[in-house]
């Protein structure tokens, strides 16, 4: 597998257990920097579990434990010395359901910024505008920044969540089925956004939609039953998959 981009996230024999139940089996892969990497696979195959391990959101689930090595910039995220708050700031996350805080649009964006230090008003204004522009939402909301974010449409809410994640200036963006609750037009906007954002961020995308993976990603991993079956350039994986399971899945023979 040829790689012209340096590795950002790397897993070696990484497994996850929920209590006694093993959810991920010896995952090994390398996610390149400033590219979009998509994970596909049927429900319950472990792709979301892997995604949530990267910023340790799996810690929220009772009894979840990781084994093996999962590194970001060469540092094991499960190491005791890791400050989880800083790790999560560096690795932004967008969820399947858009979950704006029940606050104003402005406060939604500034929330992450004001967690650690006091930021001046003018700087906040600047970051809010920049983040909303980056999420292609600025023109739609610039006149109602101080209105509640709950009044936005589903697609706008999801872009707000992206803006919120981008505002803290992360290096990686994890997206867990970000478009599954959106209509095709909103989906198109978010996909456009992903393509634009990849110059700045390393994006890891979990999706149920194979066309989406084919459209936006540079690399694709196929998960099945907690195992990584195949990981390759998206074009390669979709046109000439090496494994039979992959071929069966992408041609719609199961899943």
């Amino acid at each position, binding site marked *: 597998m040829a790689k012209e981009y340096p590795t950002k996230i790397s897993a070696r024999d990484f497994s996850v257990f929920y209590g006694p139940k093993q959810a991920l089996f010896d995952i090994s892969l390398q996610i390149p920097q400033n590219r979009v990497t998509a994970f596909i696979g049927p429900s319950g195959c472990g792709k979301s579990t892997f995604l949530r391990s990267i910023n340790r959101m799996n810690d929220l689930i009772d009894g979840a434990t990781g084994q093996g090595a999962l590194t970001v910039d060469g540092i094991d995220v499960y190491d005791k010395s890791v400050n989880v708050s800083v790790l999560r700031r560096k690795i932004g996350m967008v969820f399947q359901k858009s979950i704006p805080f029940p606050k104003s649009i402005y406060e939604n964006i500034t929330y992450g910024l004001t967690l650690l230090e006091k930021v001046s008003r003018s700087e906040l204004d600047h970051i809010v505008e920049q983040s909303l522009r980056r999420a292609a939402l600025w023109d739609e909301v610039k006149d109602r920044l101080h209105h*509640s974010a*709950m009044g936005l449409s589903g697609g706008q809410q999801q872009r707000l969540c992206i803006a919120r994640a981008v505002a803290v200036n992360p290096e990686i963006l994890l997206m867990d089925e970000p478009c599954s609750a959106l209509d095709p037009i909103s989906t198109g906007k978010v996909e456009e956004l992903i393509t634009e954002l990849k110059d700045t961020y390393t994006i890891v995308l979990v999706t149920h939609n194979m066309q989406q993976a084919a459209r936006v990603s540079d690399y694709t991993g196929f998960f099945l039953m907690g195992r990584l079956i195949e990981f390759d350039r998206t074009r390669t994986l979709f046109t000439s998959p090496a494994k039979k399971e992959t071929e069966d899945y992408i041609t719609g023979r199961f899943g």
Partner: protein
Amino acid sequence: MLHPFQQPQRRPLETLAEWSIRAVASVSIVVIFLIFLFVFRETLSLFVSTDHGQPVADDVTGQMDDGPEVYNPPQLEDLDVPEVYNPETGGLPETSSTGQQQEQPDERTVWEKLFHDVWQPVGEQPKFGLLPLIIGTAKTTFIAILIGAPLGILAALYTAFFAPRRLRNVIKPAIELLAGFPSVVIGFFCLVTVATFVQETLGVEFRLNALVGGIGLSLAVIPIVYAITEDALSAVPKSLRAASLALGSSEWQTAYRVMLPAAAPGVIAAVILGVGRAFGETMIAIMATGNAPMVSWAAATPARTFAATIGSEMGEVVWGSEHYGVLFLLGTLLFVVSFSLNALTELYVKKRLIKRFQGK
């Protein structure tokens, strides 16, 4: 022949159940309305009666079957009432003038008696000054909420977000059990233990005072604030917590800056209900506040609340007298205040918060 869609439904048992539920609901509404009506009617007797000095009972005696017990002032004047004022019933220096006024009928209007700073309902010239009662109620309620609301809310935050599951399963029922405690037990506990503790640590002059009463009332307030706040916090979607943590915030920042504001309508309702409880609680107020009507805002002086006044005086009041009417006036005030508190939360606070959070 009717189409099957058009055939009437025949489920007699369901119809019966529906009607009985409707009847039970109506009964409870009617009962509340009747209580309301009764309290207002008795209060009104205070203001519509023309002979203010005379007990209202005079007009009512004919209809009521309690002849011998009726308070009859002329008889009392015939009795050998000592000229010297009994300090036990009043003890205020100005009362020495009562001797001269004895022959004159009481010319004061009800309003003059109510806007007074002495509550001394029994005597030659009864004084129904509401000021000491208002102050007593306000300060004990204030102290109770000042202690009870933060404790209840923080305890709810702790069990909702920080406590390990096993600890939560112990704390939650324990605090909720406190809500079921007979208030006389809490009152007794305050009377004996808390009062001694407060006196020993603060060295206060009066053993039973508004502070002790407020602490006692807060014990009744905490479980209410806790239970409603806990429910409100648990109802906030867990995904909000995940979203906040994913931005790198700590558990505490998440609880304080995201979950608590999201649950704000519930939390405010909890505090208002807590105020209502502290305001209306009778037994603890009678036992632990010292129950003396005083015009003093100090926390360490005795106080008497509206509810405690009704509770301690209604048993001995002359049926239909002015005093009786004034006690019902207190009841009306209690009713009006709690009613407006609830209305305020329902109509104003919640609406505003919903607007803020849902962006409508």
